[in-house]
């Protein structure tokens, strides 16, 4: 039997048994079960009222069934707004820095020989083989006031500046700088990999064409590579920005307590204050804050695409 007829038979069997439906349905079921359902629970919880029971909330009773106090508090207490702003500011800065460091790395990856490329890609992914927490602790060790690393930097700094400006150490731990540094370090691969996937697909002859038409290397980058890598930039930035916005561990371990972060606020409301409904309201608001702009973007991007398609026909 010929190969093609065999594969056709296989496909027919696959379709007849409804496997195709199952294949398509699986990711949706997964999403419904492990994203939508928990989100609905969290959403519902955000309208509940805190009670001294197990679990520590209830609907109705002496309180309205739909208790919107928690959402009102989001706006009445500036702590939450400050925390959102801090988190988003931090995530934005980290994303920009990941982009600035990750872009040349991703571009470099596409320009080296295939054998080198595999080695370098491996090196990009390698940190994942070590526990994330351990890597953060390693940074804490490096940034500590008495570490060799800090002493080295302090020595270099004191050597440059006049003696009356000399420092005993460089304050790095428990600063906003430390949070951005460790966030950038931790999330850099999430920027590099989608960018690399995008840049790797770009036809090198486009660059040659631009150069052939008179553009110097920088102009080639600005006119061709950069605009064509926008999808990769968006993908990488989202992969860094979204988890960085809700990041709990990094600000807790290396951050400054004077800058409340939204992840920490959720954790405090949930655990310290045992206010599950309030924690849920903060979490829902964070999700809306992050996802809604994304949905709007996707919607308009899709529309623009459709419009372009229509024009073409």
């Amino acid at each position, binding site marked *: 039997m010929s190969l093609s007829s065999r594969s056709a038979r296989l496909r027919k069997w696959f379709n007849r048994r409804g496997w195709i439906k199952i294949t398509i349905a699986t990711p949706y079921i997964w999403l419904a079960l492990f994203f939508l359902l928990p989100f609905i629970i969290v959403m519902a919880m955000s309208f509940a009222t805190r009670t001294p029971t197990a679990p520590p909330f209830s609907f109705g009773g002496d309180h309205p069934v739909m208790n919107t106090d928690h959402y009102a508090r989001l706006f009445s207490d500036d*702590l939450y707004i400050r925390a959102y702003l801090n988190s988003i500011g931090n995530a934005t800065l980290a994303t920009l820095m990941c982009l600035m460091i990750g872009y040349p790395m991703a571009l470099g990856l596409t320009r080296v020989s295939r054998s080198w490329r595999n080695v370098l890609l491996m090196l990009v992914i390698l940190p994942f083989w070590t526990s994330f927490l351990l890597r953060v602790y390693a940074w*804490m*060790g490096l940034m500590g006031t008495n570490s060799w690393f800090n002493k080295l930097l302090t020595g270099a700094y004191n050597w440059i500046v006049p003696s009356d400006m000399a420092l005993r150490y460089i304050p790095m731990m428990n600063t906003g700088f430390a949070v951005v540094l460790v966030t950038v370090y931790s999330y850099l691969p999430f920027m590099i990999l989608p960018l690399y996937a995008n840049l790797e697909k770009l036809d090198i002859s486009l660059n040659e064409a631009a150069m052939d038409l008179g553009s110097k290397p920088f102009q080639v980058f600005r006119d061709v590579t950069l605009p064509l890598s926008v999808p990769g930039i968006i993908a990488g930035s989202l992969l860094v920005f979204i988890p960085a916005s809700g990041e709990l561990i990094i600000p807790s371990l290396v951050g400054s307590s004077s800058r409340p972060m939204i992840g920490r606020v959720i954790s405090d409301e949930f655990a310290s204050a045992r206010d599950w409904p309030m924690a849920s309201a903060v979490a829902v608001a964070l999700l809306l804050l992050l996802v809604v702009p994304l949905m709007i973007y996707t919607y308009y991007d899709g529309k623009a695409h459709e419009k372009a398609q229509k024009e073409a026909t």
Partner: protein
Amino acid sequence: MTKLTRRTTLATLGAGLAMPYVRPSWAQSGTVNVYNWADYIGETTLADFEAQTGIGVVYDTYSSAEEMQAKMLAGSTGYDVVDHAGIDMPRAIAAGIYEELDKSLLPNWGNLDTEILRILSGWDEGNKYGMPYMWGSVGFTYNVDMVNERIPDADMTSMDLIFDPENAAKLADCGISILDSPTDIMLMVLKYLGLDGDTTNVEDYQKVVEAFKPIRQYIRTFDNTNYLNAIPNGELCAINNWSGDYATAAGRAAEAGIDMNLAYFVPKTGAPAWVDVMCITSDSPNRENAYKFLDFMMQPEVAAGCTNYTYYANANVPAREFVLQEILDDPAVYPDAETIGRMWAPKPFSEEQDRAITRAWQDIKSG
């Protein structure tokens, strides 16, 4: 509250080591599911229990009190025995997550220190629900040499050393760390300010916020775990912490061969005491074995074994005979009578207090 996140690092790395011991004897005697702080039991305690009773221990650990409370409040955990913070007991009892202990199944109950039971009864009236396990104080650990270098003849028993902005400014560069646990530190500050530590007037919390304001800029971090590494590295010199952690940090410094003059003080204006208790869940699937486990934990040698490993004081009187002399002699672990006199068991918080204290704490931290 009690000791919050303890040894997060070790908990993470040691999760594999803390896995249950698999023994064929389970088939006969069944198992008991225990949920405890990470690194908070004797080195051979679980193996000894299995050898003695033939009951397998499924041992699970947590590294933050909040994590444990959240899990217990959510319900249906399947645990039989849970280590819980004493001060949090009123809420746990109200939520109905633990069962009233049947003392007739606990013949070793008589070994328990009546003084500790008395303190505990403030949170668990009549000691109906919890067996006291370890206890201690909240205080300050100082790197004596680093502090004296900056403030000669500093009075380490006074919280002025931290809350006087002049002192705090001098100590800022060698590192001040405060517990990220409002129910511990805020009560201490209330006492320091001459207010009632058990105040129910939430306006008083605002005074604590005010007291922190002038020194906030000098506090390097609010933290419950990292000081265990930062102290031996000489990165902190004034650390607000729980009694046992002082000993752990000192041990780590000694292990690393660092000569370090550390001292632990309970402030003379007073500090909260804490007691951790072991409870049996109300939906315990192996109730009988849970009682056997609790009773086993009250055997003097067993309790002493736990103290000798964790450097926390146990609540077992005859166990003192088996506790290492150096631990018994360490006033940070087994405080003297005068120190005990400065400690008090805080009253449980109302919902309103809980919320106000969390909110005030967020203001303090964010300066």
